């Protein structure tokens, strides 16, 4: 009996100790990356390679917001520190980046995720770590749908854009719609939802053409589109191939409705890239961003960015970072001084009708129904020589 009591006592001590330690471990995880005067926020994306713009430049935008917040005293007295990790836009890179940020750098949360495929690969690791994540560039729906407890996105997702593109063409009364697309993972994440939506709407594309990102010429595509008599062309292209496509179509005197997406949302830059005066008369594009980098409303951000990164001119990539960082700061502020992961995630889920300096639409995170917080595609077009918002 004595032995039994001793064993029970020992087991109780062990159980109590384990409970205490695990409790403190939970508490540690909940407040990881937070000190009295600092909150460490991670970011990952490519620093180099062809898509560094979606990593490095977006992060520079985030850094600009953190700089502004810190200048004003921080969030509840804590300064924000950005810890950057390069994922090289590769799945293995993003998994390593998440692990490093979570377990080595011990940041509180992450804002970033540039490349869809890479970010998608890191989702299991993100879920395992429980680290709050705010996506700001990657557009693949599968990252945030179905809902994951700790992952939110402030970027328009690919299916939202694809549906909006087709709706725009139909609203314009287009009868012969064509699509010109790249064939990489980024493009396929848009193309597949577009095809599914077209099927649902009973639309058959009159031409379905490929154009590679580096193509110096698109004359064959232009000739085929013209021969098919397409009256609206949906782009699933980066700005460079889209500019080449339009230039070569205009060369043939062919100028139907051109429908772009957020990869072509720097309208002024795109106008220069196409290079032919009046070329964008029939062009409209989706934007997640409310302003053009040269708009007077963006002057203070341009100045701040220049101060931090003298080589940079404000671009829509920076503005994506600015918008997402402002959403994150809003949630951090709403979570209060006694910040924990759960409080932050709860604050993210409760964000409603938040107006950032950058995004075209209000940000609403409809937890638990949807963590896709940006549902409002803005539209840009040229009217009387001026860039205007159509929405």
């Amino acid at each position, binding site marked *: 009996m004595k032995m039994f009591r001793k064993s029970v006592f020992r087991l109780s001590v062990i159980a109590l100790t384990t409970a205490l330690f695990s409790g403190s471990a939970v508490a540690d995880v909940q407040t990881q990356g937070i000190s009295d005067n600092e909150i460490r926020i991670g970011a990952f994306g490519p620093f180099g390679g062809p898509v560094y713009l979606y990593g490095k430049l977006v992060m520079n935008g985030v850094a600009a917001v953190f700089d502004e917040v810190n200048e004003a005293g921080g969030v509840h007295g804590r300064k924000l520190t950005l810890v950057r990790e390069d994922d090289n836009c590769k799945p293995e890179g993003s998994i390593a980046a998440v692990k490093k940020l979570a377990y080595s750098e011990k940041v509180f949360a992450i804002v970033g995720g540039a490349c869809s495929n890479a970010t998608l690969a890191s989702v299991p690791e993100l879920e395992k770590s429980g680290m709050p994540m705010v996506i700001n560039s990657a557009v693949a729906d599968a990252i945030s749908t179905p809902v994951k407890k700790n992952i939110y996105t402030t970027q328009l997702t690919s299916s939202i854009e694809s549906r909006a593109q087709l709706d725009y063409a139909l609203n314009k009364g287009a009868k012969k719609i064509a699509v010109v697309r790249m064939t990489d993972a980024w493009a396929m994440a848009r193309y597949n939802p577009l095809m599914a939506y077209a099927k649902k709407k009973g639309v058959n594309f009159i031409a379905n053409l490929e*154009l590679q990102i580096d193509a110096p010429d698109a004359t064959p595509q232009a000739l085929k589109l013209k021969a098919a008599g397409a009256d609206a062309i949906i782009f699933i292209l980066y700005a*460079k191939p889209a500019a080449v496509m339009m230039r070569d179509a205009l060369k043939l005197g062919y100028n139907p409705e051109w429908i772009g997406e957020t990869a072509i949302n720097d309208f002024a*830059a795109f106008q220069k890239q196409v*290079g*032919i*005066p009046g070329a964008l008369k029939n062009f409209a594009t989706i934007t997640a961003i409310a302003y053009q980098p040269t708009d007077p409303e963006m002057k203070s951000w341009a100045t701040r960015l220049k101060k931090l*990164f003298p080589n940079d*001119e404000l671009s829509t990539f920076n503005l994506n970072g600015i918008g997402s960082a402002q959403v994150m700061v809003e949630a951090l502020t709403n979570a209060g001084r006694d910040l924990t992961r759960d409080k932050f995630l709860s604050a993210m889920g409760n964000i409603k009708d938040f107006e950032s300096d950058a995004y075209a639409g209000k940000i609403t995170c409809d937890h638990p129904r949807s963590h896709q917080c940006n549902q409002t595609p803005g539209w840009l077009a040229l009217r009387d020589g001026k860039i205007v918002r159509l929405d």
Partner: protein
Amino acid sequence: MEMFSYLMATGISTGALYALVALGLVVVYKATSVVNFAHGEMFMLGGFLAFTFHVMLGWQYMVSLVLAVVGSFVLGIGVDRVAFRPLMQRQTLVSVLLCMVGLSFFLKGLARHLWGGKGDYLTFPPLVSPEPMQFGGIMIMSQQLVVLVACGIVMAVFMVFFKLTRAGRFMQATADNPKAARLVGLRVDRVYMMTFGVGAAVAGAAGVLMAPLTLLYPDMGFMLFIKGFAAAVLGGLTSIPGALLGGFLIGIIEQMAAGYIHTGLQEVAAFIIIMVVMIFRPTGLLGGSRRRKV
């Protein structure tokens, strides 16, 4: 017929660019037996240098063009002094090739650092009116005509350089037999240096000419290097006329394949043709195996 004419015209103008890139590659290869894997980046830097002089500093186009070509020439010499010469002195050709690959990454990174914060694709104002013009019944971009004419001039200059100048003859002699060239008193190291400089200058000139059409971005060099290399291989890596022929053929083939078969073939058609040609003629269309007289 209209479609054929358009595709042919575009194929020729695009092919002229590939030919120019191939020309620079062949010049270096003939003299040094090294494929300069950083050649595309020299093309890219030529464009960015011209952008800096013309757009950022507001200097005249011709001045910017000349300075960009001179800058590329200096860069080529730098490549010889920093990468090629020290490694070749140890007779390690593989090391030189790997060094060239590393150099291409370094130059891309440098370009991203220097010009990368200014947007995704930088625009370079065209030398002529951006409006298309009618030429022989078909519409063509004025800048494409400029590229075509300028490529012709550059090629002609090079032909004259190799045939009629002492430096050109030295380069040819060194290419044919470096040991013999050294024995007769040629300063082979200096010829190599000149070769890298001239190859880079050609790349720089091509970069400036094409910048208004292709737009500028740090990764633009790789695609053009691949196309130029393919053109050089198709024509024969040791043949300058072969490089030119290969360039034009690739330009035309990819247009025809995309126009008449499938747009997805635009990027790969030329490579399929090259595979076939290599099976039947491994030295390329105009490349011959070196003969030795005993």
